[in-house]
């Protein structure tokens, strides 16, 4: 049975541009949310998601139906976000907020900052990781910790993905607690 995405893609490829709006409606929220995890800013997240939809439109013929449409769409989006962010200044400034949280133990962090601010600091630190580790962390949690889907979206082997996730955690641990394993 064809999904709504299959139908819309076939119609767009057949020349009915307006059917692309159905795809935008269904996927705008996930794509904006994914972009937000990269930039932590609503307006910039919308700009990035818009670029991702345009790229998706231009590359629609490249979608091989053996992959789910969502998996292909997310991989296009991640590649757009990555290349757009490469052009921007390094987001290391985001780490500035974490200076206050740097300490020798997680208990001390608990004492210093409230839960909401701590969570936001961690999310910003993830967004400021080098792309090699940032993308796996963001997509893995965005995909509800589904290793197989994350690997497909990023075009990585599961073993490589696990190694990068592990390394990303080590970097974050070092940033926040000063500990290295």
């Amino acid at each position: 049975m064809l999904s709504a995405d299959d139908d819309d893609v076939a119609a767009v490829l057949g020349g009915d541009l307006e059917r692309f709006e159905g795809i935008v409606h269904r996927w705008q929220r996930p794509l904006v949310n994914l972009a937000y995890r990269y930039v932590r800013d609503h307006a910039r997240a919308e700009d990035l998601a818009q670029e991702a939809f345009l790229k998706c439109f231009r590359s629609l013929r490249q979608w091989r139906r053996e992959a789910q449409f969502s998996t292909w769409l997310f991989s296009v989006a991640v590649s757009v976000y990555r290349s757009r962010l490469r052009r921007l200044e390094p987001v290391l400034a985001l780490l500035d907020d974490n200076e206050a949280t740097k300490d020798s133990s997680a208990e001390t962090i608990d004492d210093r900052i409230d839960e909401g601010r701590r969570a936001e600091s961690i999310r910003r630190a993830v967004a400021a990781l080098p792309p090699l580790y940032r993308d796996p962390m963001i997509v893995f949690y965005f995909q509800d910790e589904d290793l197989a889907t994350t690997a497909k979206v990023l075009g990585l082997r599961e073993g490589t993905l696990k190694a990068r996730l592990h390394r990303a955690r080590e970097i974050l641990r070092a940033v926040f607690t000063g500990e290295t394993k």
Partner: protein
Amino acid sequence: MTSFDRLLDDALKARESIEPGAYFSKRVMARLRGEVELPPIAFPFWRIAAGLASLAICIIAGLTGDSNPAPFLPGPRAFALIAAAGGSLVIAVATIELRQRRRP
């Protein structure tokens, strides 16, 4: 699992609900229509041909040219290199332009 791992998991698992603006899809569709309404670009045959010819002539000039007769002027080899770079640039620009205007 350490307490830091728990903190990390809790922070990243939490669903942040970012709603796209009310006109988000309209804006995407407007940009898309604008892109589609651009006149179709002709294959930049002459630009690519000129670039390739420039490359070929300059490679030949570079390989067969005499040594530099006047040190203060660019010699044939330097000239060939500059022109070859120019030729490559013309081809690259034409290719990028084609890629950017590609449609489904």
